[in-house]
């Protein structure tokens, strides 16, 4: 007969030793830590399923995906650093103009006959300097990043227009260069840009969760006072996030110029709202302290896909904006339900 009572501690203590927290199981841990990113993936897959049901012929054809995969990387290079800046509790609306300026530097260097790799370096330096400048303006000037970066977006775009008088730069020589082969050709029928975008996303994921920079971004976004009390240089972390956005915008600018062989003075303009939407569709909340790089990349995929998808599904282009908004609202509702905010 079993003599053990519920209060008898000998057996219960033994079982407590082997009892483990559910989050110790690897797959559950994965689910918990990536719930926002997985949520965005679910949104994307549901959308894809809807489109495929609407028009099975088009959505089982690879050419549609290949066209999305060419333009998607530009959005990813913009979205991923923006996740960092939202996590740190700021916002940067100047990235389209930074992208334009950095790509301008790239175009000027290539036009002058230098190797495109020097152009890329020039673009990266331009992006970093502009990011640093915008960051200093917001952090040292103690300005609202929403307004200050919006102003900087106009200022930088204005500078481009004043100096170029609206003229574009075409770069036909690009197609012969090895840099073009490396960054803008095709590999196994897939646009090579997407490999670079995936590499950038994976690098950023490590930077975000396993590097001092990313960890400080989280803490500063969560509680800047505590971060300062514990010896973290809050201003430097914030400016660092702005510099990262500048670098991401520069990469995006270079890729977009290489796709078109032309730099336009409006380069980057159309990205402001879709990229902002991608960050939040991806599952990064607006209040700072937490976020998901992978989700951001998936959000960029979702937002980039809507336009192609709507037309591919046989609806007229007039439906694009409506569905764009619908997807944004639905994903926000989904993330709200999926997330808990701790205070």
């Amino acid at each position: 007969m079993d003599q053990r009572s519920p209060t008898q501690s000998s057996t219960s203590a033994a079982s407590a030793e082997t009892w483990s927290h559910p989050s110790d199981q690897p797959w559950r841990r994965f689910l918990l830590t990536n719930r926002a990113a997985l949520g965005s993936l679910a949104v994307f897959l549901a959308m894809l399923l809807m489109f495929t049901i609407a028009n099975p012929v088009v959505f089982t054809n690879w050419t549609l995906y290949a066209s999305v995969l060419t333009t998607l990387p530009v959005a990813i290079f913009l979205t991923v650093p923006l996740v960092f800046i939202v996590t740190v509790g700021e916002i940067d609306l100047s990235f389209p103009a930074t992208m334009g300026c950095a790509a301008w530097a790239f175009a000027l260097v290539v036009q002058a006959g230098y190797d495109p790799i020097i152009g890329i370096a020039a673009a990266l330096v331009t992006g970093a300097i502009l990011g640093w400048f915008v960051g200093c303006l917001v952090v040292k000037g103690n300005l609202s990043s929403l307004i200050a970066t919006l102003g900087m977006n106009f200022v930088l775009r204005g500078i481009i227009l004043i100096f170029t008088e609206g003229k574009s730069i075409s770069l036909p020589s690009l197609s012969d260069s090895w840099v073009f082969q490396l960054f803008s050709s095709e590999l196994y029928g897939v646009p090579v840009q997407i490999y670079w975008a995936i590499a950038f996303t994976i690098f950023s994921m490590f930077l975000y969760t396993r590097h001092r920079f990313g960890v400080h971004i989280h803490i500063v976004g969560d509680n800047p006072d505590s971060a300062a009390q514990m010896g973290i240089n809050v201003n430097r972390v914030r400016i660092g996030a702005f510099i990262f956005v500048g670098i991401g915008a520069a990469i995006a600018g270079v890729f977009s110029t290489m796709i078109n062989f032309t730099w336009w003075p409006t380069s980057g303009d159309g990205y402001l709202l879709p990229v902002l939407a991608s960050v939040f569709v991806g599952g990064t909340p607006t209040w700072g302290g937490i976020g998901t790089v992978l989700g951001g990349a998936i959000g960029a995929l979702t937002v980039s896909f809507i336009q192609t998808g709507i037309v591919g599904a046989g609806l007229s282009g007039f439906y694009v904006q409506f569905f764009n908004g619908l997807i944004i609202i639905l994903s926000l509702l989904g993330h709200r339900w999926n997330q808990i905010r701790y205070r």
Partner: protein
Amino acid sequence: MTERLIELRDITKSYGNVYALGGVNLHVDKGEVVGLLGDNGAGKSTLIKILAGAVKPTDGEILVRGKSVTGWNAARSREAGIETVFQDRALAVQQSIVRNIFMGNEQGNRLGFLNLKHEIAEAGRLMREIGFTSKVFTPNSIVGQLSGGERQGVAIARAIYKQADLIILDEPTTALSLTETAKVFHFVRQVRASGRSILFIGHNIHHVYDIADRFVVMDRGKVAMQISRDKVKTAEELIWFMEQIAHPEHKSQNAKEPALKRKAGKL
């Protein structure tokens, strides 16, 4: 002769025309527990924020192990071996326990990439040491899920990880239950036994009386009195002293008054 760990000389802090501190002298020796007492607005919190480097003094000198320091800030303070458990605990509540324990002190390689395995193992060890009995929480749990006492535990775990020479506890027992308070006291005694120092700030005079080797009473931005433990017989006597400082115009009928005055004056 005991080693002087840290010394503040003529520290002043003003916010515009308002003086929060008007020339404070304070020192902490190696291996002693100093109890810092005083009313609300006496300048206790400002003083410890200056020690922690979170607030810059308007004027005055800070000496660490006898050497004057310049460019004092939070990072320098932690480098000098001072760990502070702030009253608000200075936690980032959306982050995990391990991230809070290693806040500003992330363990990683030279490129800045973190050694998560090492950090999580260390955080688990510290959590057991500090008395996290509940197995519901792992080092990866979010601090926002924890109770007030457990959050305090995380803040203390952060302070003990570095084996700091001086641990500043700013009202560590406020809003804690009796058992949690007992845990804090146990921790203070452990730290003293290991030869390190503690600066204990408290509202509750009985708590401070129980734990400290020396009492420093602040009043209106100045150190009004310093007295060592062996000169005060009971907590009531300490309270009486503090009342005298707060309301010097109230002439007490207490017969012990002259003797106590003499004792206090000696230090």
